């Protein structure tokens, strides 16, 4: 218990040498308890601008809880959150939106009956005053123009920005949801299972979009079960198990069986059993190696 944070501090040390800049979003010592369940136990987390971090772990590892803590849906029991190096307080989704952190949930939260433009601007419609401001009307022209520009920047291909979302494919919907999240000057975007239930071509489309976001300088956090996708797109992989962070890997120096081992605990043994004498184990040797 005391051991784990030290180990990861070491690891971040190695990390810092490689990228001598501070994370855009950093969480330190986050704990969250739901009744008897310790969902998160002293977890650190960080994402840099222009980086894709994958958050992996088995069911109940605490991935969703961590994302909900970042997006403000859950409030943390203890721990600190830093955004652009400054400590911040996140009490609700509005706070995160103000900071520039956007979350795309698995259910996407799009209105199927509205077209792409209306969905991109939902709740933030552009209006123009009529009769010297007595009434207003939606400025469809500006909204459509900017929607096209945004989707072009992100290289998202859809038949028309005037097609209703119901007529789009799964990958296109995912892309629209991501575009909506990032089109308001976001700096960090969290994606919950962005490729779940997508076919091969659709998945490719979404992964390309994620790489595009990295190029635009955003910090991207991807939660995924699919290690193939994770290895394709992520720069770093953070593994959670039973509410703790049990490993951090630089993707290009890592084999997928190492990740599987970390997720299932095959490599480290049970978390509860992790003690000082664990340092010689293969798992941690790997970590120092990759770090």
């Amino acid at each position, binding site marked *: 218990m005391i051991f784990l944070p030290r180990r990861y501090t070491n690891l971040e040390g190695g990390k810092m040498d490689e990228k001598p800049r501070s994370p855009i979003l950093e969480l330190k010592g986050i704990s969250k308890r739901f009744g008897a369940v310790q969902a998160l136990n002293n977890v650190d987390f960080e994402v840099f601008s222009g980086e894709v971090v994958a958050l992996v772990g088995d069911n109940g590892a605490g991935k969703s809880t961590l994302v909900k803590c970042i997006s403000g849906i859950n409030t943390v029991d203890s721990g600190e959150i830093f955004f652009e190096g400054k400590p911040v307080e996140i009490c609700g989704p509005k706070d995160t939106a103000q900071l520039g952190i956007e979350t795309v949930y698995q259910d996407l*939260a799009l209105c199927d*009956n*509205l077209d792409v433009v209306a969905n991109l601007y*939902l709740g933030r*419609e552009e209006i123009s005053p009529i009769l010297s401001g007595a009434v207003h*009307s939606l400025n469809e*022209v500006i909204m459509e123009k900017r929607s096209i520009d945004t989707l072009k920047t992100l290289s998202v291909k859809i038949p028309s920005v005037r097609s209703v979302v119901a*007529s789009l494919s799964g990958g296109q919907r995912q892309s629209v949801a991501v575009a909506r999240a990032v089109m308001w000057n976001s700096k960090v975007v969290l994606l919950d299972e962005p490729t*779940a239930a997508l076919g091969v071509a659709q998945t490719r489309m979404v992964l390309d979009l994620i790489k595009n976001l990295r190029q635009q300088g955003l910090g991207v956090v991807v939660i995924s079960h699919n290690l193939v996708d994770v290895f394709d797109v992520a720069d770093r992989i953070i593994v959670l198990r039973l509410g703790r962070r049990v490993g951090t890997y630089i993707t290009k120096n890592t084999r997928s069986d190492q990740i599987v081992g970390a997720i299932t605990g095959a490599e480290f043994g049970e978390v509860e059993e992790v003690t000082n004498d664990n340092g010689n184990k293969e798992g941690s040797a790997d970590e120092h190696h990759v770090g």
Partner: protein
Amino acid sequence: MSTMLDKSHIEEDIHPESRLETWRKQIGRADLGPLPILMGLVVIWIIFQILNSHFLSARNLTNLILQAAASGTMSIGLVLVLLLGEIDLSVGAVSGLCGSIVAVMNVNLGVPGPIACLIGIAAGAAIGLFQGMWFTRFKIPPFVVTLAGWLAWQGAQLWVLGETGTINLRDPFIVGIANTFFPPVVGWVVGLLFVAVFAISMIAQRRQRTAVGLGVSSNGALMFRVGIIAVAVIGTVVLLNSYRGMPMAVIIFIGLIIIFDLITRRTTFGRHIYAVGGDIEASRRASINVNMIRVAVMVLCSTMAALGGIMAESYLLAVNQSSGSGDVLLDSIAAAVIGGTSLYGGRGNVWSALIGALVIFSISNGMDLLALPSSTKFMVTGGVLLVAVTIDAITRRNREVKGK
């Protein structure tokens, strides 16, 4: 649900579809806008004209439009509620109650006509506010709240009317609403103004789009749309002028449709009505005040019901204990659905109140001309409603099966 939808796309290409393909899919989805129902209306008119040559006379069509105006006004409010994916069962009772309030105020208490009408409309708005608050505060579906309202407002109507039962209206203002006919020149001015404003707004929109480099439809398509509207409007004006002129009730009805069409399509409020009807959770996450939208729509619906009640009593020159009961409620719901507004929320538009009301009243008017018994009329109207709802359901299911 979304997972299921997504799976159906696994094999789908990500390349943009060709225009032909899109068009083909639209046909498959029965997403042709108001075209099928307009064709249905033409068929209905042809059938009744063959069976009775008086059907398409100026006199009969004027009466038909006047009947449709009162019920159609109520349908406008129902369209808004249906867009939310909810229903309001109290509109008939509210129209009867508010009509009775106006009549009692004016005839028994001597309140001037315009003020009596304003009080009646305010009463409608207050009822809507009450029902809307009950819906959002206690999370009771409007179906149940307005079902209770249906009974309660009917009781209130009996209480307001008291011993007299039937009240005949003589006030020139109230009677004038449905019985004022403007001379031909007014009809022409209003009609041509409508076409001109429509054409100018289309051209202005086109200019704006071209200015920022967005695609526009071809000149031909624009001319075609303006042409269709012009033919329909001029035809209506000629028809109405050849009997007693342009009725004020029609101007009020169409005016309300235009106002609510602009509200629903061109304002954030209207956009949010569609959003809430499409996906409540998505709307909430987009920081739309869902409950505010719900209450506002319930208020508008009951207000329109009150207006419809006033137009109906003006047309019938009287109000009694059965005003607003019977098929008033079902006619106005049926009109909205037949006109193409979905019962499942999020799809449809205000014009369906006009189209649906014309269909419903063409059928009932035509059957009246043929002197068919009530039994047949009810069964035929029920059948038409069933067909409309079935089309709505099939459209919806097709969309889901195809993941669309």
